[in-house]
Each structure stands twice: as structure tokens, then as C-alpha cells.
């Protein structure tokens, strides 16, 4: 019951945030919308017992990433709020078409009747097995997923090196 209420609320705010991201004229609003979504999704994680993930979501995303976003927004001008009317010919038309396609897809899967999101779902969910405590997540993360974990190191290296390579040496203006 509680879960249901939370889900509805959070789902709505998440969607609202998402929509804001897309339609807000000012980038800052978009950022805020994204923030809202992130938080609500985080809540949904908690609801689903993914505690650690939720925490990381808030810290990494809402913390680091969004800050970064805001920095850049500041950098390139907060006040710049763009007009939303479309310049590309027929772009909105196309997007509408795509939305139509999505609807079509939805229609197909629902009309086909036996669309199940998780066909392999077990009849009886056992909260313990997915109780995302630090330990519960850490054990697989450092045993069977250890290689992937190491690989993320590469990602960060690249991020660093890349950022330097791109942002460096700006004195040369062309």
C-alpha cells in the first residue's frame, strides 16, 4: 500500500521532471527537472530495496554530475533561454512519427496479449535476495564482477585524459 502511494507520487514527479527537461526554455530549469527525476527515481530504488544504488544515485548524480552540469551552464551563460520553436524543417513531424511508431510498438505488444515485462520472473519474490545492502552488492561486485569493476578504471582514465586533451591549450584561437 505504502509502496503504491510512493510509486504513484514518485512516478509522477519523475515524469514531470523528465518533461521539464525537454520543454524548459532555460537550461537551468531543465537541469532542475533532471534533478527532480533523479531524486524520484532514487526514491523508487529505495522502495525496491536497492539502498546502496539509491545512495550512489543521489551522491554521484545529484551531487557530482548535476554540479558539473550547473558549472557548465554557468560557464556558457545562465540567462540564455532559447526559443523552443523548431528551425529544422519537418523535424517535429518526424519526431511525431517516431512517437507514433512507439505507440504502434506498444499496440503490437499489448494487443498480442501475452506481453510480459519479466517473463522469467519467479512466482515468489524473496526480498532478502535483492536487499541491496552495501555488503549484498559489494560481494558480487568484488568477486564475479571484479573485472568489470577494474574496467571502470579505464573509463575514468579516459575521462580524465580526454577532458584534458579537449579542454587543454585553448590559447590557440582560430
Amino acid at each position, binding site marked *: 500500500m505504502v509502496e503504491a502511494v510512493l510509486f504513484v507520487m514518485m512516478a509522477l514527479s519523475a*515524469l514531470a521532471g523528465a518533461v521539464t527537461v*525537454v520543454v524548459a526554455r532555460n537550461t537551468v530549469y531543465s537541469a532542475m527537472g533532471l534533478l527532480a527525476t533523479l531524486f524520484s527515481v532514487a526514491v523508487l530504488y529505495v522502495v525496491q530495496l536497492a539502498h546502496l544504488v539509491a545512495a550512489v544515485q543521489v551522491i*554521484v548524480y545529484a551531487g557530482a554530475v548535476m554540479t558539473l552540469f550547473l558549472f557548465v551552464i554557468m560557464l556558457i551563460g545562465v540567462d540564455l533561454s532559447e526559443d523552443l520553436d523548431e528551425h529544422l524543417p519537418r523535424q517535429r513531424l518526424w519526431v511525431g512519427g517516431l512517437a507514433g511508431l512507439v505507440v504502434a510498438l506498444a499496440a503490437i505488444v499489448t494487443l498480442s496479449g501475452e506481453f510480459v*515485462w519479466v517473463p522469467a*520472473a519467479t512466482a515468489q519474490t524473496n526480498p532478502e535476495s*535483492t536487499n541491496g545492502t552495501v555488503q549484498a*552488492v559489494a560481494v558480487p561486485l568484488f568477486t564475479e564482477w571484479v573485472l568489470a569493476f577494474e574496467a571502470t578504471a579505464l573509463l575514468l582514465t579516459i*575521462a580524465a585524459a580526454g577532458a584534458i586533451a579537449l579542454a587543454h591549450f585553448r590559447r590557440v584561437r582560430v
Partner: protein
Amino acid sequence: MVAASWYMGLAAALFMIGALGMLLRRNALVMFMCIELMLNAVNLTLISAGRVLNDINGQVAVFFILVVAAAEVVVGLAIIVAIFRRRATASVDELSELRG
């Protein structure tokens, strides 16, 4: 409990909003946020799926996606900044010399 399908439906919705937003906005930053939206939708999907599958790996995978997202943000913002330095705009529509 709320059936996983609701969560995943929500995720799908978020994903599509992100995807379509990506096509609707010409501000690189916003497009970028849309990608973040999409990735979040993925995370939500994984977690909800993992929950009904009694499988923790769903949550584990989310970590990696978070890292990837972070890395992308760093590089992406770097690129955006670089471009902004050159042309004082974040609109991708103005970057269309290469075509045909």
C-alpha cells in the same frame, strides 16, 4: 507490492521522453541531460527486473552504468565547453557544415 511491470513501464516512458527530447532540443546540454534520463530509465529497469528475478546482479550492473554515465558527462561537457569556446553557442544546429 507494485508489480514490476509498472516500474518498467515508467522506465520505458522516461526512456522515450529522453529519446524524443534528444531529438527535440538543439541545446547540446539539454540533449545531454536527455541521455542521462535514458540511462536512468535503464537503471530503473534493471533494478525492478532484478527484484522480481531475485537477482542482485541487476543492482550491480547499475553501478557500471552510473560510472559510464559519469565518464560520458565529463567528456561530453568537455566537448561542449570546447565548442562553446570557439563559437559561443551550445546549439548543435549551428554545427552542420559536414553534410551530404
